[in-house]
């Protein structure tokens, strides 16, 4: 139904340092479907930002993509580069990070927005200049035209008096307006995929609501897919179609948003959901916690990375074997889900929600 726009398989991004190798991303599999929103959720240090950056080959040295494929389906068949790739699909991991092919995808096919617009935008250029530059990088238009387009884009993201604000510098705007400007910039070339790296984390709740609303509106208008990175399960519940849960460089579960909140499979997902205080009916009751904290990347546990904190860990199994991905249905099918956990032995277990201990989850 909704075919995959981006499919990441076995992605590994490692950082080599004199102290050893940090495996920031270590075998990530995920799928973003056309026109849909995939939320990537996880705690700090789980590699979600690095996964996002790896997709656009924006990892700074000493970081390096060491393995895996990032398959992206290119837009119009007329695209000259697409001819080279089979069925219009390119493996972004194999492109030269500085090459022309990669640059044509950045900003045009896949755009990215970041957490802190103040530092993510140039301090010495006006926002109009930066938007116009983006347009002119990918399209052959005059300066005047690019500027008019920039004003249009600013209006679209709800910045008041855009013909005036187009000449503003980032430090002259409020946090919410900056984030809007960054969105305008990212969407100026109508990308098919927007990667949003914690775009609302630094904002107040009311501003966050405005930005989320805006993103959803624009997504509907422009028909793009969104990969939204966040640590806030509330935000996930608001906007996601599908969710990928990450832990220590691995996607441990990917499924539809409703299944995630109401029928989770992975013990980490379950524990995460239980540990969130809800604004719902209140009782001064203890929260369920996950013991310990996320291990330091230098001390990555063997086997399933979560086994050290997992209530259902099987001694002798989980601390040895890295669980394989068990997927139900085909990855292109909505309603399909994928889990990495030894409690499930077959895809059928995953579908049924029965783990090998015979316990029916929730």
């Amino acid at each position, binding site marked *: 139904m909704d075919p995959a726009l981006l499919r990441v398989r076995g992605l590994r991004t490692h950082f080599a340092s004199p*102290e050893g190798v940090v495996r*920031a991303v270590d075998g990530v599999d995920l799928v973003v479907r056309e026109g849909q929103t995939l939320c990537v959720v996880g705690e700090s240090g789980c590699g979600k*930002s690095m996964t996002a950056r790896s997709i656009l080959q924006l990892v700074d040295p000493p970081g390096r993509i060491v393995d895996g494929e990032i398959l992206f389906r290119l837009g119009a068949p007329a695209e000259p580069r697409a001819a080279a790739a089979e069925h219009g699909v390119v493996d972004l991991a194999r492109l030269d990070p500085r090459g022309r092919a990669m640059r044509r995808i950045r900003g045009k096919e896949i755009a990215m927005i970041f*957490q802190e617009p103040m530092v993510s935008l140039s301090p010495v250029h006006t926002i109009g200049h930066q938007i116009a530059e983006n347009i002119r990088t990918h399209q052959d238009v005059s300066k005047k035209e690019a500027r008019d387009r920039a004003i249009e884009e600013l209006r679209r993201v709800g910045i008041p008096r855009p013909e005036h604000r187009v000449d503003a510098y980032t430090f002259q705007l409020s946090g919410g307006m900056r984030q809007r400007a960054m969105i305008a910039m990212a969407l100026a070339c109508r990308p098919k995929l927007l990667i949003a790296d914690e775009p609302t*984390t630094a904002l107040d709740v009311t501003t966050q609501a405005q930005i989320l609303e805006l993103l959803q509106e624009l997504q509907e208008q422009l028909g793009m897919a969104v990969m939204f990175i966040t640590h806030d399960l509330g935000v996930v519940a608001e906007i996601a179609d599908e969710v990928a849960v990450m832990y220590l460089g691995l996607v441990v579960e990917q499924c539809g948003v409703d299944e995630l909140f109401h029928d989770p499979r992975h013990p980490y997902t379950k524990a995460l959901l239980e540990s969130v205080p809800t604004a719902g009916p209140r009782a001064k009751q203890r929260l369920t916690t996950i013991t310990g904290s996320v291990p330091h990347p230098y001390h990555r546990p063997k086997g399933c990375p979560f086994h050290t904190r997992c209530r259902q860990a099987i001694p002798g199994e989980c601390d040895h074997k890295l669980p394989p991905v068990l997927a139900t249905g085909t990855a292109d099918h909505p309603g399909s889900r994928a889990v990495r956990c030894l409690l499930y032995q077959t895809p059928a277990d995953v579908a049924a929600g029965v783990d090998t201990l015979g316990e029916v989850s929730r």
Partner: protein
Amino acid sequence: MNDPVSDPASDPVRDPDRDEEIYVAPQYKLVWWRFRRNRLAVAGLVVLGFLYLLAAFCEFWAPHTQDHYRAVYSYAPPQRIHVSFDGGVHFFVYGYKSRPDPETLLRTFTVDRSTRVPLRFFPRGETYQLWGLFGTDRHFFGPVKPGDPMYLFGADEQGRDLFSRLIYGSRISMSVGLVGVFLSLALGVLLGGISGYLGGITDNLIQRFIEFFMSIPTLPLWLGLAAAIPSGWGPITSYFAITIILSLMGWTGLARVVRSRFFQIRSEDYVLAAELDGVRRMRIIRRHMLPAFTSHVIASLTLSIPGMILGETALSFLGLGLQPPVVSWGVLLNDAQNVRVLSTAPWLLLSGAAVVVAVMALNFVGDGLRDAADPYES
């Protein structure tokens, strides 16, 4: 975005056995561990240690005293040390044959392979008072017979041994930087601290004053002040006068460093936390603020020593700084002002090489310290 993963170098953890050692390591250890990883800085530190050791015991290291001269060896060229192995290990240099040039009246020297000047460790030579405490005539290295010519770096016009004079010169040249830097530090910490602590209009005034100082060309002013030093002053007085002049110009940078660090640390949460603990002001400064900027200040100090050394060298080279009979590298270079003299005795430039080595070593160490100064920031 706050992935600790993004900067793996920030964490020195390697093998778990060392973890506990790192966990309980105080700041100076962490700084040292970080410093140690910078090879250039470590090399600089070794050279620096060597130079200061040389300066501290120069009478012992130098084969001759600084004023020991023999006019017959005027502009005698450097000798090479040879080793012979007949009946044990012996070091020696060849003697000179010389004859006056009829045109220039300067002596020209050739190596005389027939005479050997035997050398040894710990020979007896001229007596000296080490640090004014005790007298001895033992030197580290020198000719077996005190009167024999040994000019490893050549001789100057009066036949004085440049090698010995360089070693003696290191005492003044290397200490000018240290003393000057401490004077600068006193001024800088005082004014920078006042500026940072009081803030407001006081801060503003001190800042304008510092800007004014920084906008004055240093060397002309040094020259002006140095020229005003009465020539009748003794060597020690003029040494301190020169040092004060040098430090007058160097304190502004330090004051700025101190002030900005002060502001930065004062706004740290842990300082507020200490205030809310009921810690008294003096204790906050002593226990919480000073330790946080000592390492930075030491790094800045190290980096400002070279400026002082170069300043002294420049002044003395021009004849406005220290005057003979005081020996410093600058004073020695003063002999090398004339290109014609240089073409006769190019080895006179060796004192310049000493300056370069010292300055580079200090820069390496300072850079290394600066990079290692804050082991907690990633």
